[in-house]
Every structure is written in structure tokens, then in C-alpha cells.
């Protein structure tokens, strides 16, 4: 009984941490129409910054500041925000596709840095023994997990309500106006670039938070945790649940994570060890197929609300009379 409960708690923590990242992405994509394909990179920055700030002294690389967990988390968020600014300022003025390319680029570059800058990040071995809140006070793994779950749930609720409030505020309305008809919004004196930048940075800060929480929970980070497939997972969660919809983001995260770990466990159990890698590949292919199928058949996701209107021009005449 405890075993199953333990597993469920574990599962929920992971799913909800991802849902935090998905909420950040939803602000960028669902509400602002930005293509961030570098989610893994901002998650990485959050994780590693937290490890460096709050982790123990590492013999091989930077660390040992031993700062309180709260500071580590805030630092993680700030780091993600700074990187977002660096990437966003030049690219948000240009074609929307350029942001996609830039974000995928920055994610790769960050991963390369994590892999190669041994003095900073520990290289391919990564960082271990990342602390968790109350780890000295609550010795039992089970109870500690439960407390952690409570913390994560609280964070998710906080972010959810914060985002909902933001979206309904005047700021959020301008964002919606920019998304629907940029020319009209500009003519009213609203600078679309500033709003997009704000949305982008806030979204990335939230992703950094997710990264920190993940690092704290798992206890160690390595460059292989931040491959493009992570970005794909988060996008899948958002699309499945319904983009433009915060509840959808959370629901989608839980469902997709369930599907992911479920198929993963089946593959592990069924396949001989020689075929594990290929099994993993098949898993990704299947999930991708399901996702694409969803995009074509039910593009609004499970709780889909408003669709994001594309700003691309259509082929074929549509001029004014």
C-alpha cells in the first residue's frame, strides 16, 4: 500500500514540476504566440544554477556556496531570466520563426556548455547531492516526498493563479490584442516588442523555477537530462491539454507524463536489455505519432479553448475590395 502511494507521490511530483514548465510555455505560446523550442535550455539553467548556489562543495567544479534553498531557487529564476533577455532582445523584433531558431540554438549551446565546461558544471558527470528542503529534519523518504509534493502543489497553485490574474489584467488584454492584430495594437501606442519580451522573460523565469525544483527533487543533474526530447515532452503536454489554457497545461502534463512513464515501463519490462535503446526510440516515435494525430484531429487539445491565430499570411487573395 505504502509502495503504491509512494509511487503515486513520486509520479505526481515529477508531473507537476513539468506542469510548471508547461505553464511558463503556455504564457509564451498560448497567450503570446511565441515559438520557444529551447525549453530544455532554460530548464537546464534553472537546474544547474540551483545546484551551484545551494549545493555542497564539489571537488571538481564550482559550488559550495551552500546558500539556503530559497536563494538557490531565486538565483535559478534570475539566471533563466537573464538568458531570456539575451536571446529575446535581438530576436523578438524579427520574424517569429527566428525566435524558434534562436531558442533551439541557445538550448544546444547551454547543453554544450554544461557538457564541456567541467570547471563550471562538472562536465558529463554533472552535479550530485543537490539538497532538498527539510532533508535533515525529515529523515523518512516517504514523508519527505510527501512534504515535497505539498510544496510543489503550492507552487503550481501559486503560479496558476498568478498567471490567470496576469492574463485577465490590462497587461494580459494588450497581449491578447497584439496576438490577434498587431497592427491595430501598435496604432494604439502599445509597443508589441516590449510586451512580447516581458512575456518571454516571465515564461522563462517560470521554467527556471521548474528546473530548480526538479534538481532539488532528483538530487543530481547531468547534461543528458536536457536533450531536445525534454522540450518535445513539454510541448506535447501543452498541446495535449490545450494551448492557451492554463488548466489544460496542468492536465496535459499529468496525462502525458503518465503516458510517457507508462510506455517506458512497459518497454523496459518487455524488451530484452539489448533492445532497450531501440525501445526508447520506438517510444518517442509512438508518442510523436499520437501527438501529430491529435494535432490533426483535435487540434485544440483536450480542454482546448481559444486557438492561437497564426500571423502567417495565407496563400490566395485576401485583399480588401
Amino acid at each position, binding site marked *: 500500500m505504502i509502495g503504491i502511494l509512494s509511487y503515486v507521490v513520486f509520479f505526481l511530483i515529477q508531473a507537476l514540476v513539468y506542469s510548471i514548465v508547461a505553464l511558463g510555455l503556455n504564457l509564451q505560446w498560448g497567450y503570446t504566440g511565441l515559438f520557444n523550442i529551447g525549453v530544455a535550455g532554460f530548464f537546464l539553467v534553472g537546474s544547474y544554477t540551483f545546484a551551484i548556489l545551494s549545493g555542497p562543495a564539489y571537488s571538481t567544479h564550482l559550488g559550495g556556496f551552500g546558500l539556503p534553498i530559497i536563494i538557490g531557487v531565486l538565483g535559478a529564476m534570475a539566471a533563466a531570466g537573464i538568458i531570456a533577455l539575451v536571446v529575446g532582445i535581438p530576436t523578438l523584433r524579427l520574424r517569429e520563426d527566428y525566435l524558434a531558431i534562436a531558442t533551439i540554438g541557445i538550448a544546444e549551446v547551454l547543453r554544450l556548455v554544461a557538457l564541456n565546461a567541467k570547471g563550471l558544471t562538472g562536465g558529463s558527470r554533472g552535479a550530485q547531492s543537490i539538497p532538498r528542503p527539510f532533508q535533515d529534519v525529515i529523515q523518512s523518504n516517504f514523508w519527505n516526498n510527501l512534504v515535497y509534493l505539498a510544496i510543489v502543489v503550492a507552487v503550481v497553485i501559486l503560479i496558476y493563479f498568478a498567471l490567470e490574474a496576469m492574463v485577465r489584467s490590462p497587461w494580459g488584454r494588450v497581449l491578447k490584442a497584439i496576438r490577434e492584430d498587431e497592427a491595430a495594437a501598435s496604432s494604439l501606442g502599445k509597443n508589441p516588442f516590449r510586451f512580447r519580451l516581458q512575456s518571454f522573460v516571465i515564461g522563462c523565469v517560470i521554467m527556471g523555477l521548474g528546473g530548480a525544483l526538479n534538481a532539488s527533487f532528483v538530487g543530481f543533474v547531468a547534461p543528458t537530462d536536457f536533450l531536445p526530447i525534454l522540450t518535445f515532452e513539454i510541448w506535447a503536454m501543452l498541446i495535449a491539454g490545450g494551448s492557451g489554457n492554463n488548466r489544460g497545461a496542468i492536465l496535459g502534463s499529468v496525462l502525458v507524463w503518465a503516458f510517457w512513464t507508462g510506455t517506458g515501463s512497459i518497454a523496459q519490462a518487455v524488451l530484452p536489455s539489448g533492445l532497450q535503446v531501440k525501445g526508447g526510440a520506438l517510444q518517442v516515435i509512438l508518442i510523436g505519432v499520437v501527438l501529430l494525430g491529435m494535432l490533426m484531429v483535435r487540434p485544440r487539445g483536450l480542454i482546448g479553448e481559444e486557438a492561437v491565430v497564426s500571423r502567417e499570411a495565407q496563400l490566395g487573395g*485576401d*485583399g480588401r*475590395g
Partner: protein
Amino acid sequence: MSEWALSVDEVVAGYVAGVDILRGVGLQVNAGEIVTVLGPNGAGKSTLIKVIAGLLRVRSGKVQLFGEDISDLPAHAMVAHGVGYVPQTNNVFPKLTVEENLEMGAYVRTREIRRGLEQVYETFPDLQRLRRHAAGRLSGGQRQMVAIGRALMLKPRLMLLDEPSAGLSPLLVGHVFDKVREVRDIGVTMLIVEQNAKAALAISDRGYVLAEGQDRVSGPAQELLENPEVGELYLGARRGLA
């Protein structure tokens, strides 16, 4: 009654669902004629020509070309039916040379391109001089020539011109319309949509005046020039355009 080259019957059309720009337009063009459609802004002139060219769906009504129903044909199929459309803006391929632009006009005809080019160069000698220049580098007037020349390469049965004088200086406007008349003299039937009523009617056989999505007045070009109602529809003045 002999067959009309172009016949538009009670056509209703629009861009946004529920909003009709054209509310039952009718007009006819005889083979070998130049017919001009006039009207104030928003009357639906550009919409009309887009419908005929196949860029916009007909909601009700019919468009017929030499008796054949072409109401539902898409733009690229119109070319195969011998309809050459010259849009108002973006009407050349800027990075291609003048000659390549003309060649594109004859894309569906793979033979007799040389002869077609010769004919276009005869009508537009300037283009022969400029034939290796990139079309995007030419002046507005020259680009207009390229656009019309390109449509001509098709040897069209019907040519549709959307505001050929747009953006041109008065001197050039006269020049362009002279060329339009020369094209008709080769034997091309033309439907022109124009803001500059005087210049267009001067070379036209007949005209229609569109207002609020319907054809209000029609008749021989000279009559329209002198008709006070036309002036009213246009300018709210109790005078003709002449």
C-alpha cells in the same frame, strides 16, 4: 445575340462570412471591346475583378467566359482558359529579369515563346531595351508595362486590369492607357477597373459604374463621361466628369 466574351450575372461575393461586398453585380463585355468599371472607393471594383480572376469565391450568381461557366475556377486554372490577370500591386517578379517575367507569362504555353516575345517587344519597345534588367529595379511605369506584357504573353482571350494607373504620374498614365489601346488593337478583349475615370473612359468602348456593390449606370464611354449621375455617384457633384 452573339455570345458575350465575358458575362457577369448577379454576382454576390465578399471576404468575411456574412459581409457581402458585391451585392448582385451584372456586366457584359463583347469580344474586342475595352470595358471599364468605375466607382468610388469601397464600391467593390477590386473585389469584382478578383472574383472574375478566380481569386475569390462567388457566393451566388455566375461568371461566364465565351459561354462557359467559370464561376468556380481557381486562379491558376483561369490561365488555361485564356484569362490574363494584371494585379494592382506586386505584379512583377522582382528578382527575375524582364524577359524572364515575360517567359513566365507564357508558362502554360510551351511553344511559340519566341514569337510571343517578339510581339510583346513590338508593342513595348522599351521592354526589349530593358530585357536583361531585374524587374524589381524598374520604375513604376516600366513595371506596369512588364505586368501587362506578361499577361499578353499568354495570348489571352480576355485581359483583366486592376487599376493600371495606380501610383503613376499623369504623363505615365496617358502612356499606359495608350498601350492598353494598342493591346486591344491586336485583338485582346479587356476589362479594366479604374479610379481614374477620365483617362480610362477615353480609351474604352463602354463602361459601368459600381456603387455599394452593385452596377448603377452603364453605357457607351462617351455618354458616361457626360452623364451627371456618374459625377454624383463619384463626387456628390451635379456635373458630369467631362
